[in-house]
Structure formats: C-alpha cells, structure tokens
C-alpha cells in the first residue's frame, strides 16, 4: 500500500496542490474568498451550466443507443461477435485529437455530410454529443453487457411462465438486477463527458466551453491562475461526488447477484424482433463508430501509392526534428514504461484493496485512485513543471515524465480490472498452501498468479492502449524532438497543406491499428469476471 500512496502523493497530489496553491495563495495567505467571486461570475456560471447539461445529454444519448447493443452482446450469439466487441472498444482508447479530426472529416466543412447533403454539424452541440457517444459506447456495452450476459435467463423465463408479459418480466426481474451496472456505466460516461476536453476543443468552436476547457484557457491563455485554481477545485468536488456514488453502486453490484457462465446465456437470434434489434445495433455501430474511422482511413490513402505513409519516413518536412514515423517508436517505448509503472502501482493498490481486512480508509482510497481520470491534464502538466523542479526530483527534462503522467491515467484502469478478480481469490487456498509449507513468495506464485494472470494481462493491455492514446498531459510535457503519436498527429493537423493533413491521417490510422491489435489480443484473453471497461 505504501508504494501506490507514495506514487500518487508525489506525482499527483503534490503537483496539483502546488499549482492550486500558486493560484490561490497571495503573500502566504489562502484567498478562499476568490471561490465565491469566481463561481458567481456570469461567464463561469454559463460554463458550469453547459458542462452539466451537455454531460447529462451525452449520457442519456449514449445509454439510449448503447443499451440495445449491451443486450445484443449479452444475449445473442452471432458470427464475428468478438471482432465486433473489439471494434466498438477502439474509439474508447483512441486519442481525442484523432477522433476529433475523424468527426471533422465527417460532419465538418467539406466533410462527407457536407458533400452529400450540405449538412454541417461542427460548432453545433450535436457534433459534441455524437462524438461523446462515439467514445463512450463501449463503456455501456462492456459494463452492462458484461453483467447482463451473466444473469440467469431462467429467472426471467420463470416470470413469463407465471404469466408476466415480456415487458413486465424484463422490468421486474432483469432491470432491477441490471440497475447497478447501468448506474455505474452512466456515472462513468457522465464523468468522462463532464471532464471532456479534446472533443469540445476541436468540435465546439469558440462558443462552447466545458469546465476542463475553461481551466485550460484560464491557465494557458489568459494566465489567470486564481480563476483556474478555483475551477480546478470545483471540478475536483464534482468528480469526487461522482466517484463516491460510483463506488457505492459498484459495491452493490458486487454484493447481491448470483451469476452464471456467460457462454450459456447467449443464443442465436430468434424471431423478427431479435433480428431487427441485431440489425439496428449493427447499423448504429456502422454509422456512428465505423464510418468516422473509415473516413479517416480513406483520407490517409488519398495520395497515390501510399504517398502519405511514405512521407512519414521523411525528416525534411520541418514540422519535427525527426521523421514522423519515429513517433511510433517513441510512443511504444513510453507506453511500455507507462504500462510497467501502471501495472506495478495499480496492481499493488488492487492487492491492498482486495484484502478482507482492509479498513474503511483503504476502501476510500479506491475512489481516490480514480481521481486522476477527472482532473484537468493541464493542471497536472503545469503542476509537474513547478513541483518537480528541484533535485533530486528535477524531472522536467527527463523522458520519464511522460510515462509517469500516462501511468496516472493508466493505473485506475488496472485497479478496476484487477480488483474484482483479486477479491474472488479464496483466501483459504492461500492458507492451505501456507499450512502445507509454501513460502509467501511461492504461495503468490502458485496460487494467486495463475488465477490473476489473465486479468493482469488484460489490465496491462488496457493501460498500454490508454497510455498510447493519452494526449492532454503528454502534449504538455513531451519533448519537441520526441513527440508521441497523438502529439505528432496534433502538430501535423495544426500545419497547413494537404501533405501534413494526409500524414496526420496516416499516423492516426497507424495508431488506430496498434490500438485495435492490442484490443483484439485482449478479446482472446477476456475473462468474464474482469472489469468494467
């Protein structure tokens, strides 16, 4: 437990506290009065209101579109299901810059819809909402679908036998059992959309601003650190509240249900209703998830003979000091380092949280571990700059800074994946092994490890994909001569000309393929007790 606590204290709590203190402390005195001043400004109130309602709307829309898919994945069996499950997960780990530009290519100026029907959705709130659905579809499908597939269908069938209509049986039997998972998924989606940054920045135009975007603007452009600090605290409070509710629903879910093997609950679709549902889900996935990605790939192939891909190996473009393809290698190295750190930190935290004698305090840490997901990357980035600047911890020039920041985002995923599995390991097995004379190391190696190995691999895979795609903090601290893939994409996008745009699309495609490959590998390993993502 000590190591994860130290890690989060040193690389998360301290930098964030340092930057907040820089903003809110004048002459050594905390200016708490600023909080009331800032949150009553009409502009800020407008931002708070927009942040909240767009998150609610995005969550509702995501649930509406993704719940049928959760059912389809849970209850229906059809060829290509594994591949499809990987496909819907790809957007979740894609960097927001890539997704943002994919959507721009679809609904923006000169985009596909513009060419076909003259419809433009960029700089409208619809583009933001649709992009949020694109990102979070998998959260609902995996969280709700995962549980749904393990609910015993015979309970619902029994209700039907006793005379309940299909709807009533679903409402009275299945829905109550699913409710905690739906709530957990909805809260996760709400958290991700409440703190949305890249999507709003790219698709929202100058009129829309979420809390996170406003923190970025206040810190990076207006340089009003005290307003930024207040907004950071507001976001902290909001995220903390969301996480507390989320932790509560998770505990309820773990507590009550008797689950069955998911392999036994899925059947081939029967009847017109199920076929129609399956078709509807496939069409939604095709239009909303696959189409933007396909547009991206097509644009990367616009130049004859893979011209954009070949241009990536050329260092003379001037955008970087190195050939853009170098970013692939850099990214992989960073992601491996970040994954190692995330797995070690997250794994240790999960092990500590899973112990039956863990107290309330430790359980509270469970929710705290999720906080890095909800804190503005620019706050962390600036915090790193001013907090980690003295020997022996002057890391500002060091390459390790990037993996550290990425691990902050990856570790929560590791914890969430490992925790349910670790909790399921029967303590008596360990005790039996110990009684038979095994050393603690051997107990771990021969009892725990075989049982959690798959979960560990899945967790590592997720941490890897998330690190690979992390943008917000990385763009802030990555060294210019060593850009990661998402940073290189963003920089190419900000440069003029077809060649740069095409290269950005080509790099995005490479990134997408790497993420998809990692996910497909995970699908093979997927243990059905693991995780919410």
């Amino acid at each position, binding site marked *: 437990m000590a190591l994860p606590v130290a890690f989060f204290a040193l690389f998360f709590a301290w930098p964030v506290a340092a930057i907040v203190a820089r903003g809110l402390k004048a002459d050594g005195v905390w200016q708490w009065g600023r909080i009331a001043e800032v949150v009553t400004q009409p502009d800020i109130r407008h931002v708070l209101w927009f942040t909240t309602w767009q998150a609610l709307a995005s969550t509702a829309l995501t649930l509406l579109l993704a719940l049928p898919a959760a059912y389809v994945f849970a209850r229906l069996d059809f060829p290509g299901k594994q591949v499809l499950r990987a496909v819907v997960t790809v957007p979740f780990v894609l960097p927001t810059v890539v997704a943002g530009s994919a959507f721009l290519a679809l609904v923006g100026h000169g985009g596909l819809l513009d060419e076909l029907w003259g419809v433009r959705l960029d700089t409208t709130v619809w583009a933001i909402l649709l992009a949020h659905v694109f990102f979070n579809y998998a959260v609902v499908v995996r969280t709700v679908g995962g549980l749904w597939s393990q609910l015993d269908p015979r309970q619902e069938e029994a209700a039907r036998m006793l005379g309940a209509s299909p709807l009533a049986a679903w409402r009275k039997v299945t829905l109550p059992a699913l409710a905690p998972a739906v709530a957990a998924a909805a809260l996760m989606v709400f958290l991700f959309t409440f703190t949305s940054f890249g999507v709003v920045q790219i698709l929202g135009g100058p009129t829309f601003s979420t809390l996170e975007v406003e923190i970025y603007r206040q810190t990076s452009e207006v340089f009003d650190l005290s307003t930024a600090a207040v907004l950071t605290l507001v976001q902290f409070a909001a995220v903390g509240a969301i996480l507390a509710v989320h932790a509560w629903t998770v505990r309820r879910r773990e507590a009550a249900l008797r689950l069955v093997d998911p392999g036994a609950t899925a059947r081939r679709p029967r009847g017109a209703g199920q076929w129609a549902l399956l078709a509807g889900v496939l069409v939604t996935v095709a239009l909303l998830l696959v189409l933007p990605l396909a547009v991206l790939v097509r644009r990367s192939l616009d130049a004859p003979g893979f011209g954009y891909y070949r241009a990536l190996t050329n260092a003379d473009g001037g955008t970087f000091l190195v050939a853009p393809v170098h970013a692939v290698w850099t990214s992989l190295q960073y992601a491996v380092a970040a994954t190692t750190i995330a797995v070690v930190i997250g794994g240790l935290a999960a092990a500590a949280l899973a112990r039956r004698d863990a107290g309330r305090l430790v359980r509270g840490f469970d929710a705290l571990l999720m906080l890095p997901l909800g804190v503005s990357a620019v706050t962390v980035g600036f915090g790193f700059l001013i907090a980690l600047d003295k020997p022996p911890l002057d890391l500002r020039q060091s390459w390790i800074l990037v993996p550290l920041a990425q691990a902050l985002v990856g570790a929560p995923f590791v914890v969430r994946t490992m925790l349910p599995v670790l909790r399921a390991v029967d303590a008596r097995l*360990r005790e039996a092994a110990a009684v038979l004379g095994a050393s603690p*190391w051997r*107990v771990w190696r021969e009892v725990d490890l075989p049982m959690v190995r798959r979960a560990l691999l899945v967790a590592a895979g997720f941490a890897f994909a998330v690190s690979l795609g992390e943008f917000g903090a990385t763009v802030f601290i990555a060294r*210019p001569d060593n850009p990661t893939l998402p940073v290189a994409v963003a920089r190419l996008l900000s440069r003029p000309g077809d060649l740069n745009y095409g290269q950005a699309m080509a790099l995005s495609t490479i990134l997408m393929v790497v993420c998809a490959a990692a996910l497909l590998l995970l699908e093979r390993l997927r243990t059905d007790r693991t995780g919410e993502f």
Partner: protein
Amino acid sequence: MQNKTFVAVAVGLGLITLSACGSTDAKSSADSKSVTLVSHDSWAVSKNVLQDFEKKTGYKVHVLKDGDAGQAVNKAILTKDNPQGDVFFGVDNTLLSRALDNGLFQPYTAKGLDKTGAAFQLDKDRHRVTPVDYGDICVNYDKKYFADHRLTPPQTFADLAKPQYKNLLVTENAATSSPGLGFLLGSAAQFGDDNWQGYWKKLKANGVKVVDGWEQAYYQEFSGSSEGRKAGGDRPLVVSYASSPPAEVIYAKKRPGTAPTGVSYGTCFRQIEFAGLLGNAQNPKGAKAFIDFLVSREFQEDMPLNMYVYPVVQGAKVPAEFTEYGKAAEHPETMAPGKIAANRDQWVKSWTSLVLK
C-alpha cells in the same frame, strides 16, 4: 504475506526512477559550453546559420519549443526561479508587460541594438528585452473574388462594416488566437477605448464569422489561399498577416505571376517579438552571445523566409517576394504594452460576450 514481492517490485521501480534521475542530471547540469533557447513552436532558423553561430562561439545550442507563444511565456513565468533554459525568444508586445511585470528577464544591452529601429525598442530604459522581428496583422483579400464581382477590396477598418462587404470576413477568436487578439487591439486603437464595441456591433450585424484559430480561418474558410480553395472556403476576407501573400507565391506548386491575395493596409496592427536573458539563467554568457546573434545581420536576413516576419535591423535585406507582394504596413495601428496589459483581459471578456454569445 506478499511482502517479498512488494519489496522486489519497489526496488525495481526505484531503479527505474533513479536511472531516470541519473540521465536527467547528465543533461541539465549546464556545462558552460551549451546554451538553451526556450521559444514557441514557430521558432525556425536555417541549419547553416545556426551552425555558423556554434562554430564562431563554441556554444552548442539546445532548443526547447514550448507550445504556442502564450503558453511558452506562461510556462517561462511559472518556472522563472529555476528556468528551463538561458534565453527566451518569442514574447510579443501584446504579452510583454506580463513577462516584464513578473520579472522574467534580467537586463542586457545587446551588441547591435543601436542598429535596430527606435520604434521597436519598447523597453528603452532598462533593456530587459531586445527586439528581434516584427509583423503586421492585416486583413487579406482574395483578388479573384473582388475582380469577378467588380468590387473594390476594403481598405480600412471602417470599410469592413459597409454593406457591400456583408458576410465576407472571417476572423479568429480574440481569446484564443494571437491574430484575433491583434485585430481586436487594432480596432481599439483605431476607434478608441469607448467606441470599439460599437464598431464590433456593426461588424457582427455585417456577418463577421469567428473561428477558433488562424489555421482554420486561413486554410478552411478563406477563399484566397490554395488550401482554402480546395476546402471550399467561401470567405474572401480573412484576418491574417501582411506577409501571407508572399507565402502563397513561394509555396505554390506552380509559381503564379502575381500573388493571388492582397493586403488591406488600413486594417493593420503591429506585432513585435522580443528575446530576453532569463533571470537565473545557468549560462548567462552564452545567452548574451545568443541574443547578439539574434540581432546580427546574418540571422536577421535568414529570418523572413523561416518565420515570415520582417527584420528589425535597419538595412537588413528582405527577399524579393516580400518587397513585391507583402511589404510591411507604413502606418499600422500600435498600442503601448502598458495600455495593452491594463485592458487586454477586460476587452477580450467584453468582446467575447459581445461577439460570441
């Protein structure tokens, strides 16, 4: 029960961190033979020119590009007690007061400062910053559009609000884009503190379009740039730079006989960029040599085609494309850095609620 693993892993992680620190120390401990420049993403110099400097002085130059101009300044201020480099280039007159008031720089009178124009020396008394280049933020027009429609292109700020130019102008968000801010400051300088809001009301009624950044405005919305034409841009007026027309000529696939775009010289706002010796620099001697280099004739003449700006040193030659298609403005709007500092945030705020909301 799992103590040994904990220990093993902890040691492993410790080693990673230590090795990281080790490599850091090797890099950051400034040997006096290297000088680190902190700048924004637009910094560019020809390789051979920089090599000349390194050969002559014996310093190895490290460059740290630290985001766009605003971000780079803000980061430098936040880290000023323990700076990331020795010399900073790229603070302009709109942000100068922020840098000076926060004590970012220490005074240094560059060799060759006397050859720069007096109008560029905005810290004449204390020499904390040295002017390096300037540019003009001006409305550009699409020559073909105005020829096809038999319209005279607008020349002044006031022209832009006239009905014949309705729905033609695209500009940038003053809160997020430096040309956007420059255009706002230009209008404030032209119409005065009390009347610029009335001007923007007229512009809004005349259909001005606002986008977030210059790239989007120039490469997607503007009909005069080659990319904008391809993207189907339909605005023949854009807030850009006086040096944009030469770029259209130089980067064209087939070199046109004349620039496809022109500059409305009555709509210009002057931007001057400065360099300074960072307080607490580890190698002040090297930093000073580098500042001297920035105002040397060699660098000043290399600069225009790399960063699309004009030299501040009198007599420095500019490329023919610049004199032909993109001269600097003769009478641009200007504003004292102190006045900009006092009003910038308030003006941007009222501009935002006036134009965007």
